[in-house]
């Protein structure tokens, strides 16, 4: 059987099976600070779903709840039908997780780092070495597998973490800001490997990022998150088109205020808080940044969102750097 065929078999039966991830009214507070405030999410099996938002939007907290690191009441989060509160072990067996920090153990070689995760996921000894080799090859680290991870570059560490997450054949791969701090070349390389493995295995990918270009390019659907809430959900195209329509309608608002409502076929939108006029889309085609600015009410300079510790200035810095590097 081909890998694609096996991937299809491995994949749950499409729309009739449970969703890959379902969050219902997800809330989480740190003391008096509400980091996640009533998030509803439905990630479909096999898709690449992006959770977008500035620093402090609540993305990482949501991820930590989904990965069972933070406790939530039963019924709020389900992974492939398993409740994150009641069936933690079952949920963890379905997950591959890459945290935000570059987290390989620098005192071990790349191969040993991956083998540790092969062991703790109960991969039998007879197939452990083959699996470790296969996953290292899948992320392009075969040649440097026996070097200490402390000698790896940032992009290599990220690919090593990807190998650690993939060695157990997860059904849901969760990547928390997988390309943060990487140069543009390394970012592209990491995404190439994610894409290739995803295509080969058919696994679902949930990724958080504040790089809008990555979301546009690699995600099937995205959710825009701001101040602990989901502001809009849809494909990048839907979101852009929806904003285009909203902007067009904004010009007619004086005549007919209901014209600014998103269309029925467009993205799911909750509480647009930003003005579509001055900070809305430019005369050219709107980007996801424009969409975010429209729904969240904060611009790329992050003036407003800075109150919550979040801003997009790093996005602009990265873009400037990327354009310099070419």
């Amino acid at each position, binding site marked *: *059987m081909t890998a694609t065929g096996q991937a299809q078999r491995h994949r749950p039966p499409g729309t009739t099976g449970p969703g890959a991830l379902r969050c219902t009214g997800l809330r989480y507070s740190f003391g008096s600070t509400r980091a996640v405030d009533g998030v509803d999410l439905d990630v479909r099996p096999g898709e690449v779903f992006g959770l977008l938002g500035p620093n402090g939007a609540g993305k990482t907290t949501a991820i930590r709840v989904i990965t069972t690191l933070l406790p939530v009441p039963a019924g709020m989060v389900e992974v492939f039908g398993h409740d994150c509160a009641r069936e933690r072990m079952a949920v*963890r*067996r379905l997950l591959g997780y890459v945290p935000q920090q570059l*987290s390989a*153990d620098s005192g071990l070689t790349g191969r040993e780092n991956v083998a540790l995760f092969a062991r703790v996921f109960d991969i039998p000894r007879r197939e452990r070495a083959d699996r470790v080799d296969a996953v290292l090859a*899948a992320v392009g680290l075969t040649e440097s597998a026996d070097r200490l991870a402390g000698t790896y570059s940032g992009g290599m560490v990220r690919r090593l973490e990807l190998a650690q997450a993939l060695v157990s054949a997860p059904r849901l791969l969760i990547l928390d800001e997988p390309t943060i701090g990487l140069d543009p*070349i390394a970012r592209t390389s990491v995404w190439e*490997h994610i894409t290739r493995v995803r295509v080969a295995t058919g696994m679902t990918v949930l990724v958080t990022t504040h790089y809008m270009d990555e979301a546009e*390019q690699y995600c099937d659907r995205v959710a825009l998150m701001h101040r602990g809430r989901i502001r809009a959900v849809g494909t990048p195209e839907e979101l852009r088109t929806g904003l285009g329509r909203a902007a067009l309608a904004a010009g007619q608002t004086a005549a007919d205020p209901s014209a600014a409502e998103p269309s029925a076929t467009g993205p799911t939108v909750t509480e647009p808080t930003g003005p579509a006029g001055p900070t809305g889309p430019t005369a050219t085609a709107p980007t996801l940044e424009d969409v975010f600015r429209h729904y969240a009410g904060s611009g790329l300079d992050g003036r407003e969102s800075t109150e919550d510790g979040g801003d997009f200035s790093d996005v602009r810095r990265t873009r400037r750097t990327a354009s310099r590097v070419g």
Partner: protein
Amino acid sequence: MSAVPAAPRPASADRGPAGTVPADSASDRASLLLVPPQPRRGWRMVVNRMLAMCLVELQKLRHDRTELYTRAVQPALWLLIFGETFTRLRAIPTGDVPYLDYLAPGIIAQSAMFIAIFYGIMIIWERDSGVLTKLLVTPTPRSALVTGKAFAAGVKALIQAVVVLLIAAALGVSLSWNPLDLAGVAVVVVLGSAFFSCLSVSIAGIVLTRDRLMGIGQAITMPLFFASNALYPVALMPGWLQAVSKGNPLSYEVDALRGLLLGTPAHLGLDLAVLVFAALAGIGAASALMGRLAR
């Protein structure tokens, strides 16, 4: 989803070996990564996690033995300077046993404790670097993870104990080389280290930072050491210190080590029972506090 960009990019250390992701036989390799493993459950899972954590410690020591050498200095100094001097002074009554011999098991226990008591710093480092977070997302109950870490600390301490044993033997300490006695020594050292490492992880779960843990670790190691029978018989201590010594697991560890290595009268059954109980209690406390490190 958009396709991968087609434009050629310059080579980078962060790219795959040939500058692109190898396409040939990628699907064959990937097929190996489609089948999730069968989970282990119960004690087999705990043993599996313990072995995995212990192996990691051994692999790290294989790559970098600096810690092994530097940590051997202090026990060597204790035996060479303190031991030799007090053997000549005969200031501490130890019966028929030369003081250096009497001291050697105490120094083995002390060096093992010093390693274990700072194990929490490694846990905090793993937490800060994201390694612990990833382990906590694996299908490993926190108690199994803590047990694995505790015995990994025991393995590290055991290697240290071997080094101290060799130094003691080189200094002429007459030790038992009976394999059963040595196996007993290994069990005692691992159990003692499991307790002290869990104590350290528990403190780490409370204080959450390396600096604080370092301060607390330094504050408690010497009192634990001096309030035990490692340096002198308990009978020489004032009454209040004797009471403290009786509640100190290090005293039971030293007592067992002396009995096994020197053949002096010991309460091996009681010593092992106390060490097992202490290790289990430590694992319980550290598991309960591990959740704070996950947040």
